[in-house]
């Protein structure tokens, strides 16, 4: 095949475009399939419990068209996106950081403490809190990274254990006299001292209430995530290690270093998860600080295929479900648990759907390559005959 084939060359861009168009359809097929399936399952569930599912969807969608509903959804998406990004960063390297849950709790606690003790001008104070949270989250996560590299402990086991330890750490520190101020005898809720005024992050005032300025931090995290992954050597090494550790080692990647760094970065992003709530809404870390965001992040990362772009949709979808789901009990007496069922079925369905779509895509690709090769062989044979 020394002589270039002009016909094949001309057809190439068109073909590439067609493939990528098809790839987009394939990529969208799985999540859409999963959502449709879970809506169907939940509708059946609602119907069997004697409720009209369409009324329930109507309540949810109506709330999402209102301005305060939208602000609520966007604010939640901000938190959810950060949680997903934290989990996804590890996943891209085949590193299952299940410990996002513990990392954000510890990080938010320390950030809240620092924010309550220090009062500097905003332009120092806010970066200080961001750095504190990221540092604490990163350090906490790197315990699991170090254990994996030097002791061969599975990061899954280590991070799950560290989640429990994180709860104990918060329990140990979040008591009056240590991280929480002394309280009177009649108060039962314990929280850190309120953040100084200068720690408050900016919010956009909309008709639906304050829209958290942290959304821009979340966007920034997404952009840096994508850039690092696709445009830097580190990102290449990370993806290579994720695909095949031995191949990466053979091509000169220091896998041990990669594990520690990725774990720390994943933890650092996790450190940001608690900050929107902390710096925009509650301004303190209390005993009822929202738990479970780490595990939610794993679901969202899965749904968004660990892609910074896909996770935007996944985060908004989950935020939509959670925000509008809280309307259900008071507007028609629907059980709010239906939202949890829906999120669960979406995650299960999406795993199955991705695998189905992947196999289908693989088959299509094989067929296509086969057809292409056959056409090429036919073309060269024809040439040889004519020559």
């Amino acid at each position, binding site marked *: 095949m020394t002589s270039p084939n002009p016909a094949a060359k001309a057809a190439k861009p068109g073909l590439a475009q067609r493939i990528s168009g098809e790839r987009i359809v394939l990529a969208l097929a799985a999540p859409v399939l999963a959502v449709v399936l879970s809506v169907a399952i939940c509708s059946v569930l609602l119907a069997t419990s004697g409720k009209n599912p369409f009324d329930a969807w109507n309540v949810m969608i109506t709330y999402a068209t*209102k301005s305060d509903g939208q602000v609520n959804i966007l604010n939640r998406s901000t938190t959810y996106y950060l949680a997903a990004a934290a989990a996804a960063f590890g996943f891209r390297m085949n590193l299952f950081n299940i410990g996002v849950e513990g990392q954000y709790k510890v990080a938010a606690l320390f950030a809240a403490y620092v924010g309550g003790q220090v009062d500097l001008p905003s332009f120092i104070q806010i970066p200080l809190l961001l750095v504190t949270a990221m540092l604490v989250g990163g350090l906490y996560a790197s315990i699991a990274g170090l254990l994996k590299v030097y002791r061969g402990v599975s990061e899954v086991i280590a991070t799950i254990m560290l989640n429990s330890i994180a709860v104990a750490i918060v*329990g140990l520190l979040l008591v009056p006299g240590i991280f929480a101020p002394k*309280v009177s005898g009649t108060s039962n809720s314990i929280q850190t001292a309120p953040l100084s005024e200068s720690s408050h992050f900016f919010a956009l005032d909309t008709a639906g209430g304050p829209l958290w300025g942290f959304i821009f931090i979340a966007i920034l995290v997404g952009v840096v995530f994508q850039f690092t992954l696709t445009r830097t050597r580190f990102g290449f090494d990370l993806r290579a290690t994720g695909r095949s550790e031995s191949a990466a080692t053979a091509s000169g990647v220091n896998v041990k270093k990669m594990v520690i760094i990725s774990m720390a970065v994943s933890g650092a992003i996790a450190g940001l998860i608690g900050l929107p709530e902390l710096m925009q*809404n509650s301004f303190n870390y209390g005993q009822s600080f*929202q738990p479970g965001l780490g595990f939610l992040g794993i679901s969202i990362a899965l749904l968004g295929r660990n892609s910074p772009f896909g996770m935007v949709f996944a985060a908004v979808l989950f935020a939509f479900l959670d*925000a509008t789901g809280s*309307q259900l009990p008071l507007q028609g007496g629907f059980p709010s648990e239906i939202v949890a069922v829906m999120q669960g079925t979406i995650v299960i369905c999406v795993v199955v759907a991705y695998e189905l779509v992947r196999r289908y895509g693989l088959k299509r690709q094989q067929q296509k390559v086969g057809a292409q090769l056959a056409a090429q062989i036919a073309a060269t044979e024809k040439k040889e005959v004519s020559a």
Partner: protein
Amino acid sequence: MRRSMKLAAVVLSGSLGMASLAACGAKSTDNTSSSASGDGSLKVGMAYDIGGRGDQSFNDSAARGLDKAKSDLGASVTEAEAKSGEAEADKETRLKNLVDAGYKTIIAVGFVYQPAVNKVAKDNPNVKFAIIDSNDKDQPSNVTSLLFAEQEGSYLAGVAAANKSKAKHVGFIGGVQSELIKKFEAGYKAGVKSVDPNIVVETTYLTTPPDFTGFNSPDKGKEAAQGQLDKGADIIYTAAGSSGNGAIEAVANKQGALAIGVDSDQASQPALAKYKNSIMTSMVKNVDNAVFAYIDSVKKGSAFTGIKLFDLKADGVSLATTGGKIDDIQDKLKAAADAIKSGATTIPTAPVQ
């Protein structure tokens, strides 16, 4: 580089688009607020903590008070409950929904609602809020705290335990090591020591905050009770929500050991009927009385304000007598109760370290 820039642009414009959409859309409360102005009837909204109606304990007690207000005072009521792991925004939304639906009296059950109540009450000064088990020095004036003197009831439980213990060895199991449960421990220990300072008191907490599973893990309660029984305690007081069911089960399995229940009269609860012979008494926290009294005060136009303490004197806490196991020491309990009511005995609210 180009692709990531494009990506950034898309994300940015997308979110800004949504934000501007948010800025111009109608609020979800716009259409409901007009219908909210009711006919002046008593409309009471209640927001429960996790577990809600049917938890056999704290929330159920509040629900009883609400039911009584419904039948005796003709209040129209709506209820909503928290789900575990929810965001702070969910609590605010729940309270706001109740406000928007025209409920002018709203009762939040449990201290987890404090920040949300503060915020929503500030925005709705004409709505009356009550919060059970919590107060905050910054709470707006339209918020009333309904508090209980758990240490006083627990003191009596301690007196009863000390008088009934043959082994001179008793136990305390707390669900979560929170300020609230520490009040139970402090009162109980003080009560025991008032009878006989030489009695040994075992103390076990099932979890520490922010892990609140200690309130709904009967397995943990059972294990802790078994541990205390093995050490020789023969009377165990459990203040741990539904975890207490496990502790009571463990106590019932040991001959001669007795349990002290909490919050509701646990010896008369159907779910615990088979262990009722092992339940000596229960430290009843009359959340229902408090809820009813609050709604009644609103109806009469003289709503409670600030902090309303339901102590022994106000019948906010008491010992249950179902089963008659403490009938023989009633005179001693009465003497102790009178001393508390008259102020002769003061009880610590935090355990002595």
